[in-house]
């Protein structure tokens, strides 16, 4: 039998800027390759407060709750916090909160505050699950912590649903470009109402295990409706921090295929900075967005 030719994505594709073509060729024939409709501009909210953590990294939950309120108002444009949650979720929704359990876990304090916010619009605890079972949910909140990843470059928004696949090892290395297809699984598609990234204490090097030298107190939340736009901003923050640490260009390696592929191949949102409107709230020092 003739060996099937594998389309290898290489360093040269990145240097040439032909990544999209290379990803497209490498994914030819895979399921769910489809570009969907995307908004012309995607809003991403970056909310920071210097007081949200002390020097020992203890969370001030009052400040964190305020940050979340500010974030929700900015995302939705509603006049009250409850209205902002109700514009995204219904009272009878069964909500799955999808957190990062490993490497740089989502802070439990943030999860608890989100649960309280959902309670306040009438969603009871029994209908809120920190879950890896999307089929039991009518709505999902994608709530990873901001981090780089040694097999996929970035391991934040698009990668956060990897466990929904039931085959996480199938989405590493070159196959990380396919992470976007998980968002098209029938039990996942269309359910994500909010992307809320815990950027309180991110990890900018790839791991695979935490090295505290590459964590820093960004003290932020990054949120939006467009998962690709939010991941693009996350990528920008991580990349800028890495360059600052080394004092020279220190690109993520391997390069994060999944973000551009989520845009160009899977149509999940925009990775084009020109089409992302960033709104910053609060503490401005070392924003890492310029």
């Amino acid at each position, binding site marked *: 039998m003739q060996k099937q030719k*594998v389309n*290898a*994505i*290489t*360093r*040269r594709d*990145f*240097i*040439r800027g032909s990544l999209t073509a290379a990803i497209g060729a490498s994914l030819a024939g895979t399921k769910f390759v489809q570009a969907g409709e995307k908004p012309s501009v995607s809003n991403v909210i970056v909310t920071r407060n210097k007081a949200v953590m002390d020097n*020992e*990294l203890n969370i001030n939950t009052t400040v964190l709750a305020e940050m979340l309120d500010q974030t929700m108002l900015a995302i939705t444009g509603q006049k009250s916090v409850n209205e902002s949650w109700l514009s995204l979720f219904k009272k009878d929704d069964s909500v799955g909160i999808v957190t990062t359990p*490993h*490497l740089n876990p989502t802070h439990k304090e943030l999860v608890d505050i989100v649960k309280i916010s959902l309670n306040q619009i009438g969603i009871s605890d029994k209908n809120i699950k920190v879950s890896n079972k999307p089929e039991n949910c009518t709505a999902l909140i994608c709530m990873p912590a901001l981090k780089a*990843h*040694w*097999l996929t470059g970035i391991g934040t928004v698009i990668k956060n649903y990897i466990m929904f696949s039931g085959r*996480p*090892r199938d989405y*590493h*290395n*070159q*196959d*990380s470009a396919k992470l976007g297809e998980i968002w098209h699984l029938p039990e996942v598609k269309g359910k994500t109402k909010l992307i809320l990234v815990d950027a309180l204490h991110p990890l900018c090097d*790839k*791991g*695979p*295990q*935490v*090295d*505290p*030298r590459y*964590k820093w107190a960004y003290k932020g939340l990054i949120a939006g409706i467009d998962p690709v736009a939010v991941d693009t901003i996350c990528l920008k923050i991580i990349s800028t921090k890495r360059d600052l640490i080394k004092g020279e260009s220190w*690109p993520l*390696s*391997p*390069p994060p*295929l999944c973000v551009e592929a989520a845009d160009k191949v899977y149509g999940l949102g925009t990775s084009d900075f020109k089409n992302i409107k960033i709104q910053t709230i609060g503490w401005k020092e070392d924003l890492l967005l310029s």
Partner: protein
Amino acid sequence: MNTLLQSIPETIGDWQQCKEVQQIDSSNIFDYMNGGAELYLGYRFNHLEVLEYSSEDKNTILVEIYQMETSDDAFGLLSIDWSGEQVMFNQTISSDELLAPEARALYGGGLLRMATGKYYIRILAFRETTDAKSVIMQLGKLLYKDLSSEPEILRQIPLMDDIGWIMNSDKITFFRSYMVLNSLFYLSHQNLLNLDHSVSAVTVSYNSQVKNVKPRYIQLLLAEYPNQKKAAESLKHFIEEFLPENTIMIDTVKSSYSHNFKVEEGWLVCKLDNNFVSIVFNIPDQLSAKQIINHI
């Protein structure tokens, strides 16, 4: 029990071992660290033992002892990142015998990493305090047994000072897996060089002595295969996939071969010498490429 574990006490000052020692091997390492396991399995991993110390102020120190099959593999894990405060424990080998940085224990931010014999060890304080650092250093000293010699392949790394390229000794990394290579110098998401546990490989950068030259550094990949046939086939595979426009036919029966190629980042040279494959990336011009071929 791992003999190394017998070196450390159950109590150090106010810190006490607080859990049973966790035993982890290749069958359950993914449960312990998810995809991070690929790093350790990319080397010759035997097993891992994990224990924790806790203090009265609820701080925790995690101790991970990775037993690898060879000291080369332990060295390789440390060599992924040479940055950090250098810590010298019981050094017995003269630095004159070493190409890589001499300190085999590195500290930063509450994490001590070290390679001693065939063990790679991580000792991590969840909260870095003066007290925690003191305990980490005590544990490190107790666990550190000896400084092994460097992997043999490091002796094959060419010095090119005389043609203006200065090797960065703190950028030497030993590896056996393309995933590890990609985390340092991205080549491809495919295993273009057929790397596996039978291969010893090293990558290192060299900076130019000439100011304002671009690219500013070149990157050497050097791999030792178990035999000439595998080396030749691996180089052939690399050229076919990485340089698909190339029309040169590689005869895998030949035991030596060298060529330079013009690519987007300047020039690239490849060389086959029996069971060794050398590739140098980012070379600024053809003249330099020809000089480098004569040195590798």
